């Protein structure tokens, strides 16, 4: 597990960790927020908020898995951050 594809090597691993955290925060907040707006508009509170939070979290996890979790599936341009920079 010490190859850079898993983002665990040195400072680049730290960058990957912070990026993962950013995704996991953004997903539920962003889509939960959109769901909340939809609820206010359609008076369906809290249906779309719930869907947004869960869906956003799922989307963020999927993105993290796609970028960092599956090296054999990862296309060469999959990662755009500093985790590419450890060679």
């Amino acid at each position: 597990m010490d190859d850079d594809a898993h983002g665990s090597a040195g400072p680049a691993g730290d960058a990957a960790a912070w990026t993962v955290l950013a995704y996991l925060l953004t997903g539920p907040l962003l889509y939960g927020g959109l769901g909340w707006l939809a609820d206010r508009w359609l008076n369906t509170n809290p249906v779309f908020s719930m869907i947004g939070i869960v869906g956003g979290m799922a989307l963020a996890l999927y993105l993290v898995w796609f970028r960092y979790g599956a090296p054999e599936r990862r296309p060469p341009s999959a990662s755009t951050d500093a985790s590419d920079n450890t060679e």
Partner: protein
Amino acid sequence: MRALLAASEGGGFEAPGPLDFWQPLVGGDSQFALTRAMVVAVISVVLISGWLLLVTRRLSVVPGRAQFWTEGVYGLVRNGLARDIIGSKDFLQFVPLLFTLFILILVNNLFGIIPPILFPTMSRFGFPLALALVVFTTYHVVGMRRMGVGGYFRHMVPAGLPGWVVPLIFFLELVTYFVTRPVTLALRLFGNMFAGHILLALCVVGGQYLVFDAGSPGLKVAGVATYAGGFVMTLFEGFVQFLQAYVFTLLSALYLAGSVAATVEH
């Protein structure tokens, strides 16, 4: 005012809180007030500029003590951060930014424990946010210049995703790149400086209350222990202040490395 209020109600301890960080000096309580944090920031810029001009005006091959220390800090940022992280091909253009960030944050952080200033500028959120915005503007401009605006936005979404999920992921990436990452970079520095300073203030104000106002001898002893704790925490805070300046610069370098590295692949 709050102290007077507390006194008129028969005493009671007022713990330091977030309001203690809002210290307008000129202009009253308005949003255009000149605050203590602004004055401290200006003092730091004057001191840093003066120091660097003074030291670099008379450079010698065998450095004196001042030149030795200044070169040490510069070398830490140039070689230890910029070159190692960004790579020897592209790092030089980012060294001025990273060195400025590091030394500005370091001095402003250390002001939190250096008398008579005793105020960490970065405990007001606007300051770290402004620095993070400078870093991320550079980050995006470098990326867009190398890839073109369209190419830059295209590269945010990893290739090979199923088509229906691409718009959702693109929106998620967009907000992560433009909002979450700058805000978390700024929040980390702000939170550390804010919490550290409030802890020190609590030790001093609490110690003073226990020793002079609390009454019973047992509480006086506890007050002395609180002061001692405050002294230890001040040393620890000095370490945190250096570390946070380093971490902010490190992460800035990592992000900038990302913008350079991503463009190499295309």
